[in-house]
């Protein structure tokens, strides 16, 4: 009896896994490597602190200007505000990036592309919702074309409110993300 239950449980687990993996089939060109025993073990030791130190100090973000906030995003990465001071640099390829910044309204047409960018990024990865549009729809909350409630689709770690937020606010958002990573409370890694 127990055995049967167990196998049934296993079966459903397998099916669930398949169902999970199935989601990635619509993203051609991506295969996932799951976390292995070593990294599971490391998570319980002090080594993870060192890893987190490295990760928090090297947050590379995708250049993904999507609206008004996108312009502030560009300004933040450039001289004057200079996120490079914190080791945060813009990368053009999602494959090299750690942080996805949703910098504006996500439309129904753009959502698949944004999801694909997110899937192309290697984990551990984090999301910053930059600006009111990404958080709640902003001034376009009632539009027929935008996709609301982006935080249900992406595991957002930091919300930066403002319409658009100033560059300082984005830097503050990055600092908050660093604090979260250091405290192991971020949603990018499973502890």
């Amino acid at each position, binding site marked *: 009896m127990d055995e049967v239950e167990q196998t049934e449980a296993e079966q459903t687990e397998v099916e669930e896994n398949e169902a999970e993996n199935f989601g990635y089939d619509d993203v051609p060109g991506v295969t996932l490597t799951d976390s292995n025993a070593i990294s599971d073990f490391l998570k319980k030791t002090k080594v993870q602190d060192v890893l987190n130190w490295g990760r928090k100090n090297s947050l590379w973000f995708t250049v993904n200007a999507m609206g008004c906030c996108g312009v502030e995003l560009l300004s933040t990465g450039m001289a004057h505000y200079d996120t490079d001071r914190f080791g945060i640099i813009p990368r053009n390829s999602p494959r090299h990036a750690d942080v996805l910044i949703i910098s504006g309204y996500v439309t129904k*047409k753009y959502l698949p592309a944004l999801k694909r960018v997110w899937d192309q990024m290697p984990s551990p990865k984090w999301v910053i919702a930059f600006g009111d549009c990404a958080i*709640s729809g902003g001034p376009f909350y*009632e539009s*027929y*074309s935008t996709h609301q409630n982006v935080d249900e689709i992406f595991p957002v770690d930091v919300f930066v409110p403002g319409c658009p937020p100033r560059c300082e606010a984005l830097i503050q958002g990055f600092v908050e993300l660093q604090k979260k990573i250091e405290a192991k409370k971020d949603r990018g890694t499973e502890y």
Partner: protein
Amino acid sequence: MDANTIIDSLSGQFPDDIYDTDVESGIRILAKVKPENVVEVCRYLKEDLSFDHLGCEFGVDYPDRNEIEVVYLISSYDHPVVLTLKAILPRDNPEIESVVPVYWNANWYERETYELFGVKYINHPDLRQLVLPEEMLGEWPLRKDYKGFPNKTAKNLV
């Protein structure tokens, strides 16, 4: 070229197609055109009256009158007069000749009017959706009786 001469020349050339003309000010004139002959009128405007700049083309929906107006804003690089040319179409089956052969840049305007209002353009080279995702085609969101607005799905509203 001043506004009155333009109006006179236009209604002189197309007495049957141009009606309801109006001079609002020295630089703004208004005319309505029968939808069948819009291409000829546009060609005349471009070639003889130097209205070589199609500023814009869009639709306005009037459910009360059961009409969709297609408005052409035609101006010129040489003189400051802007002509508002209107073609009135039935709301159930709006169809009009495409002006792409005359004004090349009408291409996107017509595609957009098509997807937002459902105005069919005859002889348009590539009539498909421009800004909306494909699955939204057929909803005509900018018509006044569009049901999907306002969108009530937002949850995090402050």
